[in-house]
């Protein structure tokens, strides 16, 4: 009977969002080891990809918007930039949901990389329009690369909640 209960939003939306916020704050620490700084992956890409695959939801876009606004304010970027980029990535994953479900792990990783590329391209375009200047492609690519490495977390999140709500089996 336990499986028939609807999934509580706090579990699959609240907890991952909170973990993303914490990870973002930790990776913003001003640490330099042998002249090298910590990478800055976009942790919010993990829920943006996983939430779309777990199930369509009314709350998920707003949770992503809140996460994006937090990133903008905490990182000091233009307000709305990451909110919009994450939502575009979420929309892409939602649109390709039927193609992605049931795929092998490497294939899912490739999909995750694709969705991340969409988010980065959106960020590139929006910041270009906002600042009327072109961001460094190398810096964008570097952030894309380190964000792509976060796929195992997205996979774990999908595995944990994909079948949690029997209504979406």
């Amino acid at each position, binding site marked *: 009977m336990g499986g028939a209960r609807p999934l509580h939003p706090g579990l699959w939306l609240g907890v991952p969002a909170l973990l993303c916020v914490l990870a973002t704050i930790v990776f913003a620490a001003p640490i*330099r080891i042998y002249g090298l700084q910590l990478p*800055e992956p976009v942790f919010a890409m993990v829920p943006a990809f996983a939430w779309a695959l777990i199930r369509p939801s009314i709350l998920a876009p707003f949770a992503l918007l809140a996460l994006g606004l937090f990133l903008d304010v905490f990182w*000091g970027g233009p307000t*709305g930039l990451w909110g919009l980029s994450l939502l575009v990535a979420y929309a892409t994953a939602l649109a390709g949901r039927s193609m992605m479900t049931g795929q092998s792990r490497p294939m899912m990783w490739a999909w995750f990389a694709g969705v991340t590329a969409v988010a980065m391209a959106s960020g590139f375009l929006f910041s270009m329009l*906002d600042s009327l200047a072109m961001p460094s492609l190398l810096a964008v690519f570097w952030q894309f690369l380190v964000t792509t490495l976060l796929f195992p977390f997205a996979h774990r999140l999908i595995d944990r909640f994909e079948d949690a709500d029997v209504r979406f089996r």
Partner: protein
Amino acid sequence: MPFREGPLGDLKVPLTWTAAVALIVAIVIAVAFLLADRRETLQQQAYGVTRQTVDTVSKPVSGVIAAPGRWTGLGVDFISSYFFTASENRRLKAELKEMRGYRDMYLAEVDKNQSYRSLLGLRTDPPIPMAGARVVADTRGPFANTRLADAGSEKGVVVGNPVMNERGLVGRVVGVARGASRVLLLTDIASRTPVMIDRTNARAILTGDGGPNPKLDYLRGVDPIKEGDRVVTSGDGGVVPRGLPVGAAVKGLDGRWRVVLFADDAAIDYVRILLFKDFAQLADQKALLTRSLPPVTTEDPDVSILGPAATAPKPAAQAGATPTAPGATPTAPTAAANPAVAPPKPAATAPPPAAASAPRPTAAKPTTPKPTTPKPTTPRPTAAQPAGGEI
């Protein structure tokens, strides 16, 4: 009546559609936020209360999170300094030997510089007060490059203040809260800083792009730059003081001139915020507001731009000056100004006793020309005073 028993009870909206509508609404809100953003104006009003609150909350949280990293860095430094003491000692001795030569040159140049300043009557800028701060959070993404420093409005920090570390310029303050301030780095895509090439004085605008080496845009002049040239702030526009070290010029992979920032060579956790708003703060505001205007006369007091009628009431002060003015004016002020600045100089510049006898005739000089004319009491010296009045 419960909803399910009503006429719309059988209406079932597919979740996919409602999710799509929610997604569109969220996108519209995000677009509205982006359009309303005024971050690029770099004004205090544009920073907003939300950002100030987040900065205030982030400061202690990020400070606690950054502490273990800082301690680890200090520990690594301590251990490496223990193991590499001998080699470091050798290196430092060689460096000290080289620096002694530079020190002597420096002292000689300082002395010469002071003499030139006195002679030319240069007015140098007064020292700018600073506030020390520790960086608690650092953002390095392609779309935002900022740092959060733990000094804010309580230390007099305001939006626009330049920020340096011990090597060079880091950026400037774009948001201030109580106890925290947000620093926009030179590498941020919204950052524009007027700079010049130290060797040629060629002007350029340092433009960030999210990468580690900002570009030099609008570089002017014929052959204005070469590899390794030192880049400093030009002070144009008055937002940043002139002459702050920025970095060294390099040719980028894309063929554009870029700058390797000096600030990147230093530790990133401590910065100095220059409490500099604009050049207006360097001027003496009381002196600017003074009502006593200088007399409206030309070099020759007999010829006034106001005409003969206006020259008539000039009388007493000018009267004494008129006889000597036509012939002796060009030489007399320099003779009067030089003795005024000469006395401090021999004391500073003449350590050998032989030189001590030299200033004596110079010091005696003011006494000899004085009796000939009562000129120094005329308005002439007031014109000469700014020339000698160095800061």
